[in-house]
């Protein structure tokens, strides 16, 4: 029998503003993703360049067609065709097959409505942007950014060890568990300063009105259709980030993390000596 002699105590890990803004982000990004997929369904193809019709085929196209065996969902990526019946192109809901690029269980609204999806998307885009501005201002003012998020030079030496720890699902204990680890810091900084600004900028790039602020600025990113493609790709990179984020939360103490993001209190376990 092993004696449970681990000493532990509660530590105030996340401040109230960070907790509130975190959950606002959860709601806003979920609504943005799901309404965005509904908007994509209005024209389920992606291109590179200034226009959709340039003589070149789309990079990605999702559709449905009749096959010998019956209707099938087809996803074409860089000229390669995949049968995605059931999920992409053709999916079942309410007991019947529907020709939709993304299935209705992942879109807002759950029925086809471009107008309603755009309303959702732009409302939550502003929730997200204002929340982001508040977060950045708070992080700079409270030094959350410099103290907790930016990796310090000595930490960079520990990247190799941190990668190994992550792969072996070994998690920091004691004082080290009060801070973000170096990979976590890199992930957060990349999301906050690269992916999120890029997804917002590529959203603006799709606006014909904003394109006229400095005519031609959109071509810097490859053109309006390239911007639409980047907007879509960055959205999925953000989904990938969230999946990894949630995975790490689950494997490193689910309820402890959930509590610390609600009440701020995180249980620190002293390393067993």
């Amino acid at each position, binding site marked *: 029998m092993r004696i449970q002699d681990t000493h532990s105590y509660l530590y105030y890990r996340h401040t109230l503003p960070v907790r509130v803004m975190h959950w606002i982000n959860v709601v806003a990004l979920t*609504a943005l993703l*799901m309404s965005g997929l509904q*908007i*994509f369904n*209005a*024209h389920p*193809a992606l291109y590179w360049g*200034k*226009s*959709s*019709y*340039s*003589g070149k085929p789309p990079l990605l196209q999702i559709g449905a067609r009749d096959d010998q065996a019956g209707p099938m969902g087809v996803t074409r990526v860089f000229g390669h065709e995949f049968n995605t019946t059931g999920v992409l192109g053709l999916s079942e809901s309410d007991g019947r097959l529907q020709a939709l690029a993304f299935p209705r*269980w992942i879109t*807002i*609204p*759950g*029925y086809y*409505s*471009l*107008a*309603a999806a*755009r*309303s*959702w*998307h*732009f*409302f*939550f*885009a*502003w929730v997200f942007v204002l929340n982001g501005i508040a977060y950045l201002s708070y992080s700079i003012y409270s030094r959350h950014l410099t103290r907790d998020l930016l990796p310090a030079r000595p930490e960079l030496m520990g990247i190799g060890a941190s990668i190994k720890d992550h792969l072996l699902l070994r998690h920091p204990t004691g004082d080290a568990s009060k801070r973000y680890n170096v990979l976590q810091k890199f992930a957060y900084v990349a999301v906050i300063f690269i992916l999120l600004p890029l997804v917002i900028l590529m959203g*603006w790039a*799709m*606006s*014909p*009105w*904003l*394109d*006229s*602020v400095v*005519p*031609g600025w*959109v*071509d810097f990113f490859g053109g*309006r*259709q390239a911007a*639409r493609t980047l907007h879509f790709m960055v959205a999925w990179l953000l989904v990938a980030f969230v999946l990894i984020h949630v995975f790490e939360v689950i494997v490193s103490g689910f309820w402890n993390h959930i509590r610390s993001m609600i009440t701020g209190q995180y249980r620190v376990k002293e390393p067993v000596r």
Partner: protein
Amino acid sequence: MKRFDRRRALQALGGAGALLLAGCDRLTDTSWFPKVLQLGERTNRAVQRLVTSRRSMAQEFTEADLSPEFRSNGTSLPDNPEYKALARAGFVDWRLTVDGLVHDPQAFSLDRLRAMKSRTQITRHDCVEGWSAIGKWTGVPLSEVLAIVQPRESARFAVFHCADPMSDDGKDLYYESIDMEDAYHPQTILAYGLNGQALPIRNGAPLRLRVERQLGYKHAKYLLRIELVESFAHIAGGRGGYWEDNGYQWYAGI
């Protein structure tokens, strides 16, 4: 036991997701929630107006950027007997009526419009659905037409009445509207040519509006009449356009 719990948890998660989705759809169908959501587009419009001059120019492209074929969307042949008769005769009897709040209402033939000062522009057409196509448009600037009919002081919007019915019974003719600042914008033209040819029927022959910097549905096709008004509240659904009456934005800037 643990596996059972996990399955229960997954089922609960799936159930919660379905409830959430159903909840979103019910919110969308209430009378009040869409109004809250509209705050997003209202903010878009205010910010777009704030950061952009009303005279800002849409990007113009080169011949190399032209789409091989300009996509036709929405109506490609108006199901309207009068329109079809005009088309069969090569639009010789077609007239563009410009009236409403003007000092000198007139009817313009296609030949007369073609004889007026023209502008050719290669621009990108951005559909609300997400696709873009680049075309070379030739037409008469709307400002030239307005100079002839002389709008009254009270005119605030130009309403474009079209020949294409949007319902199967031949009713609900397509219409659109823009304000006077857009009407006088140098890139706002009444186009009769596409890619060096006469405007094809599927792209809006004989005359369509080009109002660059705005989404595709603003570019009304199959024009019959331009009416200058103080308010469009009394026309059709009252929101200034066919798609606006169906939940889309009048300013159409994103």
